[in-house]
């Protein structure tokens, strides 16, 4: 366990997706390990932080902004995309409309957040499909295809059982680390742009 304030990098993340896909549940599961006591619609934005250590030993503090999913709230939540380096874009695998919206959410993130924002696509509520396979309305493969076409990370998860929740954040943070490290290296060594870009991202998480 590392101290909350003992970190090497601070990353701003946003949680986006349609209303009722489970964004706040995912955050609560990740931060507190439990589901919200009184689950309710998020009004505007909510905020949480968690400091984690990446594989290579460096600590990053994730500053996570949970946003209201209702369309109308974008007028006040999209301001929070600014300077975000990562996003969890969540849909509900039992509701195709929430998956369809991901295209629009993604475009909005890319136009308002940092240009190289790392986006993790998360198909939430897999527990429902495990209980009753007929509930699944979005194929794993269809979502995985979409993710690879758009350059998104992808996982299916369940905030209710906790399955893959930590994994989603870990993979996202690691990828952000690699991306920003990349950028830092380029900035540190402007004469040597192209060689650095060729390095494998796997070897870069070493503080």
């Amino acid at each position, binding site marked *: 366990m590392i101290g909350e304030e003992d970190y090497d990098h601070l990353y701003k993340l946003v949680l986006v997706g349609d*209303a*009722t896909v489970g964004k706040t549940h995912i955050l609560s599961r990740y931060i507190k390990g439990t589901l919200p*006591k*009184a*689950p*309710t*619609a*998020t*009004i*505007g*934005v*909510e*905020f949480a932080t968690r400091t984690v250590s990446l594989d290579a030993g460096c600590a990053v503090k994730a500053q996570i902004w949970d946003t*209201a999913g*209702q369309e*109308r*709230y974008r*007028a*006040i939540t999209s301001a*929070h995309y600014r300077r975000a380096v990562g996003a969890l874009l969540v849909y509900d695998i039992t509701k195709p409309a929430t998956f369809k919206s991901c295209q629009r959410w993604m475009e909005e993130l890319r136009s308002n957040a940092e240009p190289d924002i790392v986006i993790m696509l998360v198909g939430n509520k897999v527990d429902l499909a495990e209980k009753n396979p007929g509930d699944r309305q979005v194929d794993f493969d269809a979502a995985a295809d979409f993710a690879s076409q758009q350059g998104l990370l992808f996982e299916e998860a369940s905030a209710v059982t906790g399955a893959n929740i930590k994994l989603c954040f870990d993979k996202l943070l690691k990828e952000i680390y690699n991306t920003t490290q990349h950028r830092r290296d380029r900035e540190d060594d402007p004469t040597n742009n192209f060689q650095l870009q060729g390095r494998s991202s796997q070897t870069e998480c070493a503080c």
Partner: protein
Amino acid sequence: MSEGCCLAPLFSALLPLQRLVALPVPSALKTWEKEEALDEAGRVRKWSSALSECPESLVSLCKDQPGLFKELVEAGVPSDLRWEVWKAALGGLRCGQGGQYQELLQRHSGWEPLIEKDSARTFLVLSVDDMGMHAHCLQNICKAYANLNPEIGYCQGMNFIVGLLLLVSDGAEEETFWVFAALMHDLELSGLYAGGFPLLRRYMDGFGQLIAAVLPRHSLRLQAEDIHLEEFLQSWYLSLFVTCLPKAAVVEVWDEIICLSGLPSLVPLSVALLECVPIDSQMRVKLKSLNEVVASKACAIAQFLRRSLTVGTLELSTRDAEVSRMQASPEAPQSIWDVSKHSTALAVMRGAAGR
């Protein structure tokens, strides 16, 4: 009118907290409480005696004797009378034309799925065990309102307002609908939920200006901790404090808003609440769980009183600047510090004539 008296409604907003947790009350406040804020039995006696001398209904008492009505509300509204008092303050119940509510219920607006999802979870927040009882009414009311005012439709946050109204009306669905409609229209609550959230932004700007001036240490610490006003203010305002204060306190705050000073008093009330939050590294957490903060700090009550007065004073000084800014930019949205609304809130803050 004395200062203590003029601030009674604001003070009463916090009294229920003390009762709930049986806090030791500072001695000066104890006296004040005995003299000015009545317990439930005292409130009932005071209202009964006023109503017995006023053979007409509560509606006419409110309309014809605003001074007395204000004095009664400041002394505290008895729980059993609250629904009737709110209806009276809103000018009596306007139930629309016969069958209009039923007709509104029949139409589809497209908001149904979201409303249904929200209605089930609203009463968890309100800590009502038997949530099935009111959830259906809440759904109906939100659906009907979306049809009554399609421009506003349904916005998450409204569910908390309707939920609390249903608890106060004890599940009187159609009446609750018309009271909600009156709040949205007459009190301009709909501005909080309209597309682009114009009123919310205006109030948040007002809050930012006020705390910078009257709570500079809080303001600086919020910045230092990188706490954004949106993190707490949006839910404070869009739920009219339902999501952050205990029910008993919320209804008293609503007494103030509905019966006396209108929606702009959200701003000074929230500034006063912020002052109850200690300036430390735990501010962010504490802003999220105000219940504990307010209840655990009896001294906050005194600060609350003092600050409310200061806020009232500050409003005067910011108004001139605001007016000149508006004149320079005629396109600018109407400010919360505009003269009419501003003076209403201010009048109450200072104990001058009611509205």
